[in-house]
């Protein structure tokens, strides 16, 4: 059973068209939810850690929010360089360090 489900699988936006990516999780007793960005041929790059419902983190045009069942990655006025796959992960409840990743959302921002 997947602990992390991301939607949509793919998203195409025009430059400047704001939108949100969704990450739903089923793990109980969440100890941390993580967002990473992955460019083609590269390893994932860390963006945010969220610990508790109501928490928000921001970085440039990205804002991550967390509720008790899901997290959103809001992208405001995206630029073509924001094109990437965005990965969501939760800490494995059975370990102190392993992460369970979703399959990601592939974002394409066109000029």
């Amino acid at each position, binding site marked *: 059973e997947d602990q992390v489900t991301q939607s949509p699988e793919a998203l195409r936006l025009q430059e400047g068209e704001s939108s949100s990516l969704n990450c739903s999780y089923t793990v109980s007793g969440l100890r941390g939810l993580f967002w990473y960005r992955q460019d083609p041929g590269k390893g994932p790059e860390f963006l945010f850690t969220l610990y508790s419902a109501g928490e928000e983190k921001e970085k440039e045009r990205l804002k991550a929010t967390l509720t008790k069942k899901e997290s959103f990655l809001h992208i405001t006025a995206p630029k073509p360089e924001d094109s990437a796959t965005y990965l969501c992960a939760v800490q494995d409840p059975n370990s102190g*360090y392993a992460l369970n990743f979703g*399959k990601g959302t592939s974002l394409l921002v066109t000029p």
Partner: protein
Amino acid sequence: GAGVSQSPSNKVTEKGKDVELRCDPISGHTALYWYRQRLGQGLEFLIYFQGNSAPDKSGLPSDRFSAERTGESVSTLTIQRTQQEDSAVYLCASSPSPTPFYGYTFGSGTRLTVV
């Protein structure tokens, strides 16, 4: 070094052969992780090393997979008798902390193709 270095970047091997993948973590990072990324799938945890503690091998998919780490430096992931289902990108990550809270730094991965 400035980042996590993995070699080779690409490896094509014949079914049944053994392969060895290498990871050089960031200097001073005590935690090191191996993950596997198969096409269309999320990253799968394989193994975790923390300092001189016994590694957590709970994610290794079979006894054909093994990994070693020398102190807090280089790690090697070995796959024996490779199978086609082993084809994937193998990613190494390191962290200065035992917990994932401050984020991992990933290498660019080794793309393994078993033919």
